[in-house]
């Protein structure tokens, strides 16, 4: 999975990269299942593997094939893994990685107080029962507010996205000539 | 709403009037402004007449015409209440300066006749600044004081920048930056003070200057508390606070080496503004040093008195030497005011009644004389748009009355007995000399060095006289100049004669000033010295 991700980071062809991206997403879904969060995994697949593709296609349709050109269009010098140009960012990322790992490893998570309470009090997902019901109830009660908010939010985002994309029609007409040649 | 509020807000009222008057009444603006200034003068003299001369004291009892309205009262949670009052009052120190301001404003209004373009803006700003200056001299609440103090900046910036000479942008910006630099840091100290002082009655933090002057009101352990030594960066906080405020005002005075804004500002500013700059702004610096720096940090004042005196001496001599070298008449006078204001500093530093009274009187007299001087420069500058000393010779033959007034002004400001400057400078020096035997703060040679300054002032003034006014008449501009250089006009007489007489009267009857401010200054000096020494012991311990 990680290799795929890394490949995305460095591969030349954008289309392939996107493909691998999906791969990564699926792999993540698998991980979620390992993490005993099947519902999340489903959502992941639906929203990402579904939603993002849908978005892409949606955009594609709006932009009558231009997105394909966009996607095909290559960062003129395709990124290799260790390029001098990328060296600073590599260093930076490795630094960040070091920091993160150092923290993640240095802490003994299970000894955290809340986990200490959680494990004995059975507040730990065993993987036996399905969480969907519970989550649903929570969503409808405790998380009702975020749920509603996010609906408004999505609406706003969609409106906005639609608005931005919509205008392009007029724009594209006078830009066809250039794109051709 | 007593006289003080009236004298402060009168200009604002007329300012509104001017703003409302349409452009076709543009000529009226001059008269409105002049009328305002005259009214203020009248009020100032009413105040002078009604003033109780024996009343004195460090607390509220020392002030008269006190007016105190609650202004900003905030609950600052953990800090308790913040109290800012609209708090006015005058004592023997501020009334003379108030009168001076009114007079100088009148003079400036008269000399504003030379302003030709964009009258509305000019007079609006002029009146705004007028109000601010009056307010500075009356305010007893530090916040209020600061507001007025800053309020002067912007009008001055525009007055110099819009109606000034060729390098006006530079001068205006320089002036603004200098002053703001000082005052912003002063703001920090103000905040610090406000955290250190509580109103004994209400127990709230307060900006009331009088409370700040009373060491009993300081909260224990506060930053500027005199009871215990707080240090900031290893320096005792009180000394630091004093230094900061002192620098802020020293820029205004101006004290060498913080004076370089002055020549530029003076040279670029139009005549009335130079008059106000020299006549009032500098005085505000001196007033601030005495009333605020010394009043609130007497210990630091005593502690630094030697340096302050030294600065004074340096300013005196340095300014005089510069004036000697100047080719531009206006610059020469500008530097001469640096030199003269040095006496003020010296007198304050001496912590003697003679020195301080002398210094305050020096402020008044310099206010009058610099008004005359700059106006006189303006006279020839408006005639031929040139004021370079080498370009004129033998003016005395050509414009006798003008020359006569110039001589009066010059002699008066070189400390000729019979004019106000003499008494002022003499007593400043006497006080300085005395302090060696009274309180051992200043060495005697400072007084003697100061008197050298008087000698030099004679040198540069007389040399200028000899170069510009004596000898056979000859101008750079030739015939055209000698036609333009007409002698004084009535309005110029109307300004110059009273000023000269005023200076003369003050010089012959100093009691008009001294007996007036005596009680206040005497109490002030003694109190400051006493408390200063007491707190200084704590500080050094």
């Amino acid at each position, binding site marked *: 999975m990680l290799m795929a991700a890394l490949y995305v980071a460095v591969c030349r062809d954008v289309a392939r990269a996107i493909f691998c991206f999906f791969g990564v997403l699926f792999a993540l879904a698998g991980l979620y299942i390992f993490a005993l969060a099947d519902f999340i995994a489903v959502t992941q697949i639906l929203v990402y593997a579904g939603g993002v593709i849908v978005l892409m296609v949606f955009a594609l349709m709006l932009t009558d094939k231009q997105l394909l050109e966009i996607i095909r269009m290559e960062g003129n010098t395709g990124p290799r893994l260790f390029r001098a140009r990328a060296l600073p960012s590599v260093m930076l990322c490795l630094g960040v990685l070091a920091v993160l790992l150092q*923290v993640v490893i240095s802490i003994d998570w299970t000894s955290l107080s*809340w986990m200490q309470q959680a494990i004995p009090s059975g507040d730990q997902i065993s993987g036996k029962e399905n969480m969907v019901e*519970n989550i649903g109830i929570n969503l409808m009660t405790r998380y009702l*507010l975020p749920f509603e908010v996010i609906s408004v939010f999505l609406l*706003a985002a969609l409106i906005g996205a639609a608005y931005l994309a919509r205008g392009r029609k007029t724009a594209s007409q006078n830009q066809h000539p250039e794109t051709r040649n | 709403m007593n006289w003080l509020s009236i004298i402060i807000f009168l200009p604002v009222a007329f300012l509104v009037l001017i703003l409302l008057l349409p452009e076709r009444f543009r000529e009226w603006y001059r008269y409105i402004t002049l009328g305002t200034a005259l009214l203020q003068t009248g009020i100032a003299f009413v105040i002078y007449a009604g003033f109780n001369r024996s009343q004195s004291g460090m607390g509220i009892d020392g002030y008269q015409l006190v007016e105190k309205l609650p202004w900003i009262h905030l609950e600052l949670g953990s800090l308790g209440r913040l109290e800012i009052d609209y708090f006015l009052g005058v004592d023997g120190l501020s009334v003379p300066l108030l009168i001076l301001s009114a007079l100088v404003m009148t003079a400036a209004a008269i000399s504003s006749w030379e302003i030709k373009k964009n009258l509305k803006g000019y007079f609006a700003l002029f009146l705004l600044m007028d109000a601010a200056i009056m307010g500075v001299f009356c305010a007893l609440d530090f916040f209020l004081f600061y507001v007025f103090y800053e309020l002067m900046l912007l009008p001055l*910036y525009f007055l110099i920048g819009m109606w000034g000479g060729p390098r006006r942008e530079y001068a205006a910006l320089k002036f603004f930056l200098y002053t703001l*630099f000082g005052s*912003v840091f002063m*703001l920090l100290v103000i905040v610090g003070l406000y955290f250190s002082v509580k109103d004994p009655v209400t127990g709230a933090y307060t900006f009331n200057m009088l409370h700040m002057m009373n060491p009993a009101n300081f909260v224990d352990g506060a930053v500027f508390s005199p009871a215990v030594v707080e240090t900031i960066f290893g320096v005792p906080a009180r000394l630091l606070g004093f230094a900061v405020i002192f620098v802020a005002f020293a820029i205004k005075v101006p004290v060498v080496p913080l004076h370089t804004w002055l020549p530029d500002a003076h040279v670029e500013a139009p005549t009335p503004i130079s008059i106000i700059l020299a006549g009032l702004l500098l005085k505000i610096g001196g007033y601030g040093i005495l009333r605020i720096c010394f009043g609130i940090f007497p210990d630091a004042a005593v502690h630094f008195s030697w340096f302050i005196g030294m600065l004074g001496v340096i300013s005196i001599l340095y300014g005089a030497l510069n004036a000697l070298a100047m080719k531009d008449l206006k610059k020469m006078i500008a530097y001469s005011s640096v030199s003269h204001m040095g006496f003020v500093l010296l007198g304050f530093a001496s912590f003697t009644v003679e020195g301080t009274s002398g210094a305050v009187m020096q402020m008044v007299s310099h206010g009058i004389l610099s008004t005359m001087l700059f106006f006189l420069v303006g006279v020839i500058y408006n005639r031929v748009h040139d004021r370079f000393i080498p370009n004129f010779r033998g003016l005395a033959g050509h414009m006798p009355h003008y020359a006569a007034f110039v001589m009066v002004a010059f002699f008066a400001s070189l400390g000729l007995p019979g004019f106000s400057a003499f008494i002022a400078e003499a007593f400043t020096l006497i006080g300085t000399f005395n302090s060696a035997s009274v309180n051992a703060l200043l060495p005697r040679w400072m007084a003697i060095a100061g008197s050298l300054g008087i000698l030099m002032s004679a040198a540069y003034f007389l040399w200028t006289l000899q170069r510009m006014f004596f000898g056979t008449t000859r101008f750079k501009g030739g015939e055209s100049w000698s036609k333009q250089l007409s002698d004084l006009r009535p309005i110029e007489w109307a300004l110059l004669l009273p000023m000269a007489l005023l200076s003369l009267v003050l010089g012959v009857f100093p009691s008009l000033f001294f007996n007036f401010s005596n009680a206040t200054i005497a109490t002030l000096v003694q109190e400051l010295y006493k408390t200063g020494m007491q707190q200084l012991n704590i500080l050094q311990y």
Partner: protein
Amino acid sequence: MLPHISKNVEEVLGSLGFFLPELLLGALFLLLILADLLLGRRYKNGSPIIAFAGVLIITLITCFQFEDAGKVFFGGMLHLSVFALLLKILFGVGMLLVITFAVRDFRIRHNEKGWGDFFSLLVAVLLGLNLMAMSSNLLMVFLSIEMVSICSYILVGYTTRERLAAESSMKYVLFGAVCSAVMLYGISLLYGLTGTLQLNSEFTTRLAATDALAAGLALFTTLAGFGFKLSMFPFHFWVADVYEGSTNSVLAFLSTLPKAAGVGVLVQFMHATYGFDWATWLAVFSIITMTIGNFQALWQDNLKRMLAYSSIGHSGFLLMGLAAFSQTGEMAVYYYLVIYTLTNIGAFVIIGMLANILHSENVNSYKGLGFKMPVVSVCFVILLMSLIGIPPAGGFVAKLLLFSAALEGYGSDGNILFLLMMIAGAINTVVALFYYLKIPLNLFLRKNEGMVIVARGHLLLKAVIVTLTALTVLLGIFPELVMRYFEG
């Protein structure tokens, strides 16, 4: 589990009352969309009027929420503190101004795709802002921040036909997305460390219990999101470019309200993470931020960029108030925000108006304008004085209060950084003078005889400008008008 449910449900229902303004906002949002769809074609001014009226009403309603102040509802999702409430009112007022401005903003008004969505988005943003101010749950925090961000992206890119707008929006969205991603990571760590998303005492204690390094990392990464909104170092890089590209009305909004919201949410967050040594770090951030902002502004001749950098400097000042983590600090910050919002919106309104007239946003194009348009120019100068912090304009009192807060902080724990912060603030004030004075310099001191003004400024905008200026001065002289609400 069922009692559980019922409890939650009735709590939700109970909360709805307090939530009324936000609900109405949601409704207004939908209403606007419909309105735009149905009668957007015929009545061009329909949606702005509706939006204005709606926001006005809602703001008024909000003003009557004071007795609800301090309540926590939706199971701790939201916490309506006094501060939040005041912020909400500020948002309302600011939004009203923005809408009024937008109506007369050339680029918005003559946008090829109409402007219906613009106002609906503004309303949506307002909703997000309110939530930001109130949210006391990491989920809500994230949600509301994202809401504001995404709407802002769209608003910045709203004028789709302009290169700069597009570029700005792209930079904005990429930068913002990264920041939110980092923030999300931080939140996840926080969740991991404390096991709860509620910003409550439990959270505080648990966080305090954990390892300082991990907590620090989590907090820093979370800070990315707030910092992005506050345009605080090191998340300030986007500011200049985004400001330059976006239209003035958007800018008037962008430079003020999200900042305020960021402050609000940061305050909530700080309350929750009390154990962490915010003072030191915010002081450091504040010093760096204000210094960078002001020094970068020095060379700018493009007014938008100048104000962009100066707004960074102002966030530095805001951080000063936050660093002194006290009620005084909150009051100071709030007052500063009010003044800053009014002043900045006013400044951008003026810039926009002049841009409509001069078709330039460069200082040098203002030569001698002061004599052509005296009223506006004078107002501009007063606003600038407020930004510098010269009495009697409000900015002065604001700075004074901030300094007091900082000094109080110094008094409480002798942290020398507070003093440094104050000194930095003082120096920056002087530095700010350098570039702010460019404007009056060009307006009044420089002459430009050849200038001909074809168009006059629109009366509506002039009215707005004068009102704002008057307000600035008024609040400067009588700060209680605002501060009163903190008492008790």
